[in-house]
């Protein structure tokens, strides 16, 4: 499965909104149809779609480059957290990971396009539902974002109801930059950003394309997603508001 990237513009945008702040306030969004008791989706099978995480190293002067082996490691950690946890918030969020080798090349391409679409839609959704964005705050109560029904083939052909999407990135500073940041702060009172991490998660109903749930978490420098336990904790925070009880309840009906 080819790797996807969050649009650079949206990443900077997200960092602008949440840079330096570790989010603790409730940010989870539920699709308005879930709140409507008559329209709740019936979800039996939920898969983890291909995780797309980019880990960058930031040089002393601010040159940013992706470290592919770190990115792979973090994606593996997220898989571990979501697929092999027997307890905690991550447990039961998904039934299995999607097997892209079972898809045709055309289906893989459609899936990749929709994952890319999610990165744009989620960035917009975060923007409109931010507390400072007053004109769009009605979206908080009437959350109706969708990535379209292009993934319906996953339901009709493979009998999968919904998919969990996780995207994000982390920026890690070199030791030189961290030292420069310390010098800058102590000697000159200058702030030099040294890194942060952000994960965005979304649960997509394949029948409609609706984002049934969406949330994000961010953290400042010092979070190391390459460490499994740290990554698990971060993912647990991300899925705090995941509608797991609701979905299990409907699948039992």
């Amino acid at each position: 499965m080819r790797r996807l990237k969050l649009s650079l513009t949206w990443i900077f945008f997200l960092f602008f909104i949440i840079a330096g702040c570790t989010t603790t306030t409730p940010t989870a969004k539920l699709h308005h149809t879930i709140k409507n008791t008559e329209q709740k989706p019936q979800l039996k099978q939920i898969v983890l779609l291909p995780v797309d995480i980019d880990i960058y190293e930031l040089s002393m002067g601010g040159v940013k480059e992706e470290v592919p082996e770190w990115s792979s490691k973090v994606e593996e950690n997220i898989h571990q957290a979501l697929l092999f946890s027997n307890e905690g918030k991550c447990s039961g969020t998904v039934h299995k990971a999607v097997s892209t080798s079972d898809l045709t090349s055309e289906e893989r391409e459609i899936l990749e396009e929709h994952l890319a679409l999610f990165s744009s839609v989620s960035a917009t959704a975060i923007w409109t539902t931010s507390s400072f964005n007053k004109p769009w705050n009605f979206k908080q109560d009437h959350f109706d974002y969708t990535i379209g029904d292009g993934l319906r083939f996953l339901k009709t052909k493979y009998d999968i109801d919904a998919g969990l999407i996780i995207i994000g990135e982390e920026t890690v500073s070199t030791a030189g930059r961290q030292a420069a940041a310390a010098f800058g702060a102590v000697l000159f009172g200058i702030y030099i950003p040294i890194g942060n991490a952000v994960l965005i998660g979304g649960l997509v109903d394949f029948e409609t394309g609706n984002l049934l749930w969406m949330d994000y978490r961010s953290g400042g420098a010092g979070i190391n997603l390459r460490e499994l336990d740290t990554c698990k904790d971060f993912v647990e925070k991300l899925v705090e508001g995941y509608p797991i009880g609701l979905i299990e309840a409907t699948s039992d009906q």
Partner: protein
Amino acid sequence: MSFRRIALILPVFLAACQTGSVEHLESPTDVQSITGEEYRLWHAASEFDEKLVRGHYLYEDAELKRYVQSVMDKLYPEYKGVIHVGIINSPDLNAFALPNGSIYINTGMLSRLENEAQMATVLAHEGVHFVNKHSFQQRRSLKQTSAFSLGIGMITGIPALGSILTISSIYGYSKDLEREADKEGFRRLEKAGYDVSQSPITFQYLLTDVETLDIKQPYFFSSHPRLEERIESFSNLAAKADSQTGSSYEAEFQAETSNLKLELLNDYLEIGQYKSVLLILKEESARKRYPPQANYYLGEAYRLRDDEGDVKKSVDAYLVSIAAVPDFSPPYRAMGIHYMKHNEPDKAISYFTKYLELSPHASDIGYIKNYISKSQSMRGK
């Protein structure tokens, strides 16, 4: 500024000055041992390749691609299978090399060149950037420059100064690396049997375009000072060349790029760049390198420019196209519109009818039928 502060900031400068030499590729198999920092650059380059494919930025003409690749393979035979050439569908004057051996040339650049030797000049130059790992050297240099800039910014208290130092090294490689690419690319041209006298002409040709059309894009091959450097560099190399013989393969190049040339003329008109079309086609010697249908596009360019006398020039050009290629339909439509505007409905209907006969499935068939109705109603008025 106290000496204590400077002494404390000194490690920042020392870190910025750390250098390590970058080994050129000695053989194609060296690419298999890429690791660390260099691997990251390759990875980023591969992702860029994917983006170009998935974004449908590439010009899909298998035969043209095969031809351009064959020229690259002639220049770098030992890197056959390692250096891959792609053609980007863009009218801009641009060609670039990625650190993973992907080399791209724009359709705009290809359509401007006169022969294979000129194309080989550009490809040979870009190939050196890959073989000599100039991207990696530039990345290292950028990291050092930006680190140095950070230190400068801290001391002077003017962060903007630091960022200006960084940005000034971004467009194109350093002068030294570009001259290295010229020199080693030139050797490749000689060895492959190309007419090396074409190498400075390549850039003179591009410079004429840049100046005449007042092109201000930030690409290397659209940069006035960069092109002047190339002309000087290649002129010096050509003057010292052992042999002035060699082939330019003009006929082969014209045959392979004739369809592309017409498409680019159409693209230029669609984005309103009629000046480009006039620049390319105004000289008869240049028009000879284009298929005769190009006269239609020349006619369109005159029509869009609409200076005094351009109406006659446009009609003359359309008629040349019709005489040379009677079953090429667009000039018939153009003539029909001309006569409709000049209140000659019979002639307009005649040309529109011929257009529909030649292009019965044209996408603008509805419009043309409407014009015919309009012209019929103009009869007798």
